């Protein structure tokens, strides 16, 4: 760890947030609209036939899943673009030639991307209040969990951005892997509602642990024990940090 260049971290962080601010209207409207649509379709149409899941009103039940879904996509998207764009436009030369360490670079880029996805997560949380009554059982755990998720998936996005050598590579993992896993991750249903071969298979889906853990912070219970969820997030954090460390040490797809 070498943290000396605080001006550099602050400059990149501000610059990245500034980039987000340029498109703040779409950036904020999209989550609000998406959430509203989900509530109309799932909360209103389906929820009217399916009043409760695990003793929780269906409208409230889907809130943690919705927040998690948007935060995962936002985190991956923002963090991967944040580092891919300089690579693509060539402005990365400046980052590579600056007296800034790998750790500082990651903190700045991942910090900025995580900030944005936390803002989006909060907006969805607030929007959801317009539709349903939500009582959060463990508010601090909830905030902490959101923070952890934002950071780990921004790290993941950062890796993707360094790895990607074209726009389609940048999209392929989020679209083909993350989105399907999130849909099947119990955002809109409880894993207990599935029949057995499916139910066991679901337990191999990592997203299940995230949504379940997040749901635990809301309602005090989830599909799997909260310890497993925390374990999973911790493992993901460590893995991502290890991969990024290796990328910077070898200059993987960064240095010629």
């Amino acid at each position, binding site marked *: 760890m070498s943290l000396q260049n605080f001006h550099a971290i602050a400059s990149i962080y501000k610059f990245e947030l500034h980039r987000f601010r340029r498109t703040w209207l779409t950036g904020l409207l999209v989550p609000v609209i998406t959430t509203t649509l989900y509530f109309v379709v799932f909360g209103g149409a389906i929820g009217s036939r399916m009043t409760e899941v695990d003793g929780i009103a269906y409208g409230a039940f889907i809130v943690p899943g919705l927040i998690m879904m948007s935060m995962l996509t936002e985190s991956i998207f923002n963090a991967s673009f944040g580092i891919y764009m300089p690579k693509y*436009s060539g402005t990365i030369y400046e980052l590579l030639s600056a007296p800034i360490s790998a750790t500082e670079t990651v903190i700045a880029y991942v910090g900025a991307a995580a900030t944005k996805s936390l803002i989006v997560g909060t907006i969805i949380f607030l929007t959801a209040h317009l539709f349903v009554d939500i009582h959060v059982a463990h508010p601090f755990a909830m905030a902490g969990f959101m923070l952890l998720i934002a950071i780990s998936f921004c790290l993941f996005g950062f890796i993707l951005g360094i790895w990607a050598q074209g726009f389609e590579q940048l999209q392929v993992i989020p679209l083909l892997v993350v989105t399907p896993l999130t849909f099947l991750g119990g955002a809109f249903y409880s894993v207990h509602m599935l029949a057995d071969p499916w139910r066991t298979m679901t337990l191999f889906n990592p997203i299940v642990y995230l949504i379940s853990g997040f749901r635990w912070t809301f309602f005090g219970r989830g599909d799997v024990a909260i310890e497993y969820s925390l374990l999973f997030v911790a493992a993901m954090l460590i893995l991502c940090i290890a991969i990024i460390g290796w990328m910077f040490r070898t200059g993987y797809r960064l240095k010629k």
Partner: protein
Amino acid sequence: MASIIEIKGLTKRYASGFEALKGVDLSIEEGEIFALLGPNGAGKTTMISIICGIARASGGSVTVAGHDIVRDYRGARTAIGLVPQELHTDQFEQVIDTVRLSRGLFGLPRNDAYVEKILRDLSLWDKRNNRIIELSGGMKRRVMIAKALSHEPRVLFLDEPTAGVDVELRRDMWKLIGELRQTGVTIILTTHYIEEAEEMADRVGVINRGELMLVEEKTALMKKLGKKTLSVVLADPMESVPAELAEWNVTLNADGHEIEYIFDTQAERTGVSSLLRKLGDLGIGYKDLNTKQSSLEDIFVSLVHQEKAA
């Protein structure tokens, strides 16, 4: 003068296996303007990229202001400003924001007065709030110079600063470089133009195929470059050069139709008129005369020959 950059045995082999630098040794003195001349693909950009941290060296070492570029990259990079060959800019950002970012990246606190001065010096102040996409190519290059200067470097690398730049801007650039030198900044620039090296540099290095072929004071090099070749197309072919012409050291071409005389344009007596008079005296007739400037190419050729001979 003390040296500010020490390059020892620097080699670079790209992932493709191509050897772009084959053991370069070079030391740059503090405060000088050093011009690196060389044809396309010689390895100029590769060398600069390694010093600045954009590419990795395969072997050898570099120190900048006493800091090893790998072990003590912070110290080395803090001293360096880089204006790369290609125009890479954040198209959608405002000029002043990207210049401020550069300063921050190099660990310096915000200093609006300093940034304003740089932008004024580069005639960019009026454009400070424009997005970079709205600027012309020459202006973009100046933005890149502003970014490099924003963090007050001791050494400035300019990789082909005048490529694609009009004559007037080229003059401005030369003036700016001269002014920077006055403030004590060491400048290393690459170019294909001898004229440019002649105008600005204190010393000139010639690189070709990854090898530094020569490093010389500009004045000494200009003497070499100042040489011209006079070719005399003879009316009748000769078997051998007459002894009377020995004094001029002329050479006869293979079929005996042409003789060549190399002379120094800067010399007080070039020997051209005396040679022609002598030819007249000897009754040697000629059909045509022409002179050509020794070009950078010629220097390469002669350097390569010297190397082979050695």
